[in-house]
């Protein structure tokens, strides 16, 4: 059979329409489209895609099931390895993982693994309540999980399916972590996140929101309440600023604030929802990652007439997914590459009026392997804007580590772990996700959650001697 060289295209909202709403941009495959795409899979015996998947989904098997129209079988196959497929199908950077490894990609476009994963996950959601897996009898062991982002949810899902009792403590008032406060509705609908969290709950995981661990309870207090092990998946929740003049002017947001107001607090529905957000006429978003793309696209949807994305390197060095950059371009975001902000300008009332930038050129590669941007003298210029969003990354939030002196962190504040297990320096405590690695991807957080779940399970089943609390 001749193989189609290109992926089956996924229907999407047209750029002109989608910038006027917060609905999902990509609309998902139909059954016919999914089957057509599934038939492109070569069903490799030694499938390189499986190895490239951080959670090692048996990709050829689930795709074969789709081709056979056995969608129930396909979703079961995926859920053996991944409990959150509707999310991963949407936000996983497949082009750098499974799809990059796909044999087809040597000659053609790879199989659209992510779109197929999304298709079966959505199929199951449409079918109604997801199939609940049968759980083993209780081990009597209790695990506390701090944070409810992707790493924590996958850790919780694995542990509960091994018979442990699991409680998630989330600091915000809604579970999901970055999936809820960070990633916008049009890329990952919150109803989908809600469904995945409900599924984890349906397995027996208790989710407690509004618990800032470190403050309301220390880790030691959780142990004294009877928890046998703890997983920390609190994310990289500390916004970075550039340390340039004018950053505290009114109208300067961290991407975290801009996105949290919009996504978690639903400021785009103000005043039906109480939290406001400033809607700029001209908005500058600083940074070249996925968060910067999200913030740029949110600004457009809020009603900005013009959005500039300012990035100090060239398009090749951008950490954002190619697809997201394209989405932003199609929607009208204007990119200013090789441009670095020098200061933010304000008026008498302390409101942002513009941003002064300097042109950059690329020099020798730096420690990240990317060519280092160097300012070009005398190339300063001003872009008139009324809102600036800093999307230049996030650091380690010190709240929990500072309340836990015996938890070892590195010089950037990230928790130090044993790479093979996720074990921290503190007895019976594991960690994973961005609070260990620094800002990374949903799927890598999920992989580290699974890794720690395995290690925690071994620890709980093995060690039955009483713990020393001293």
């Amino acid at each position, binding site marked *: 059979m001749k193989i189609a060289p290109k992926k089956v295209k996924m229907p999407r909202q047209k750029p002109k329409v989608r910038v006027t709403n917060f609905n999902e941009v990509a609309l998902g495959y139909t059954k016919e489209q999914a089957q057509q795409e599934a038939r492109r899979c070569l069903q490799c015996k030694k499938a390189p895609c499986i190895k490239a998947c951080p959670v090692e989904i048996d990709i050829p098997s689930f795709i074969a099931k789709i081709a056979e129209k056995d969608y129930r079988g396909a979703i079961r196959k995926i859920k053996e390895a991944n409990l959150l497929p509707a999310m991963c199908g949407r936000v996983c950077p497949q082009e750098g993982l499974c799809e990059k490894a796909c044999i087809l990609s040597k000659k053609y476009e790879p199989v659209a693994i992510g779109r197929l994963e999304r298709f079966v996950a959505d199929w199951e959601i449409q079918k109604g309540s997801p199939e609940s897996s049968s759980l083993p009898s209780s081990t009597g062991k209790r695990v506390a999980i701090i944070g409810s982002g992707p790493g924590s949810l996958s850790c919780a899902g694995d542990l509960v399916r091994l018979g442990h009792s699991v409680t998630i403590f989330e600091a915000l*008032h809604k579970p999901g972590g970055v999936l809820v406060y960070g990633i916008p509705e049009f890329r990952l609908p919150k109803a989908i996140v809600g469904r995945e969290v409900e599924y984890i709950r349906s397995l027996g995981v208790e989710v407690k929101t509004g618990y800032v661990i470190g403050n309301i309870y220390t880790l030691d207090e959780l142990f004294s309440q009877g928890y046998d092990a703890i997983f920390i998946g609190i994310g990289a929740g500390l916004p970075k600023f550039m340390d340039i003049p004018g950053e505290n002017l009114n109208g300067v947001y961290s991407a975290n604030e801009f996105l949290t*107001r919009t996504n978690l607090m639903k400021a785009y529905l103000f005043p039906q929802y109480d939290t406001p957000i*400033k809607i700029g006429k001209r908005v500058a978003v600083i940074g070249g990652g996925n968060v910067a793309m999200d913030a740029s696209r949110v600004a457009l949807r809020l009603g900005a007439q013009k959005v500039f994305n300012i990035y100090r390197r060239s398009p090749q060095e951008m950490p954002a997914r190619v697809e997201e950059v394209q989405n932003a371009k199609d929607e009208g975001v204007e990119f200013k590459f090789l441009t670095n902000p020098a200061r933010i300008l304000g008026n008498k009332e302390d409101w942002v009026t513009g941003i002064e930038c300097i042109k950059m050129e690329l020099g020798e590669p730096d420690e990240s392997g990317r060519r280092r941007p160097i300012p070009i003298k005398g190339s300063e210029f001003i872009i008139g804007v009324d809102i600036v969003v800093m999307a230049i990354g996030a650091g380690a939030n010190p709240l929990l580590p500072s309340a836990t002196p015996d938890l070892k962190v590195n010089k950037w504040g990230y928790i130090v772990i044993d790479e093979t297990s996720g074990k921290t320096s503190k007895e019976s405590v594991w960690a994973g996700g961005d609070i260990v690695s620094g800002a990374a991807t949903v799927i890598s957080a999920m992989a580290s959650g699974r890794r720690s779940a395995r290690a925690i399970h071994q620890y709980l089943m093995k060690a039955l001697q009483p713990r020393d609390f001293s």
Partner: protein
Amino acid sequence: MYKILNKQDLGPSIKEFLISSPEIARKAQPGQFVVVIIDERGERIPLTIADYEREKGTITIVVQEAGKTTYQLGGLNSGDTLFDVIGPLGIPTHIENKGTIVCVGGGVGIAPIYPVARGFKEFGNKVISIIGARTKELVIWEDKIASVSDEVYITTDDGSYGRKGFVSDELQRLIKGKKEFALVFAVGPTLMMRAVSEVTRPYKLRTIVSLNPIMVDATGMCGACRVSVGGKTKFVCVDGPDFDGHQVDFDQLLSRQRIYLQEEKKALQSCDSANKHSRIK
């Protein structure tokens, strides 16, 4: 859900709530705050814990109706519930035995000085409290403050109660007329905290202010509450709320507190046109 066990009108538009929250009450310390969300569509507002009773499992907050959320909160009654109360947040006020402490509370900021004054008193300090408001009926918690203070001075802007003038004037008078103070602790409107800091600056009298900027998550995640202190940007939610008043850039804080004035007006209007005390469907 958190249940309101008791509500009291303290004065025009000032309401006191006793909230059942055993876990927060168990951990609360003077100077800390909670984030309150009224309902599913509500904003997250930071409110200082004005009192807590560990055995009873309660915390007390005192609210002045000013914007939509506080009006809505003011309309709730004993038996009603709050969607979420999150805390305790912020670094507790540093309390030690230092000598004579002056606690200054302005307006609705009188209530939050109560646990701090109590804390200093329990540590063996002499506590002098200065409390003040615009007018007599806005002077709240006089008895409670008196119960943990060695001396209490009262001011009103219009002279309807206590001495006419500002709390900062009273502080100036006390400093000039009396002996050494080890520390001044002030809570209230930003302008008042700035005035207090300016009074003490020439005397190099250590002054701690409890800042109240706009917050969203209040756990250090968003940076909405950032303010310059000694030339460095601090996040009030996790680095504070207490800071050295002589180092705080009050102008910046005042300016940042005004970011959403237009939106706040709009929200209040949309609220007024229906019913101030109920959610518009």
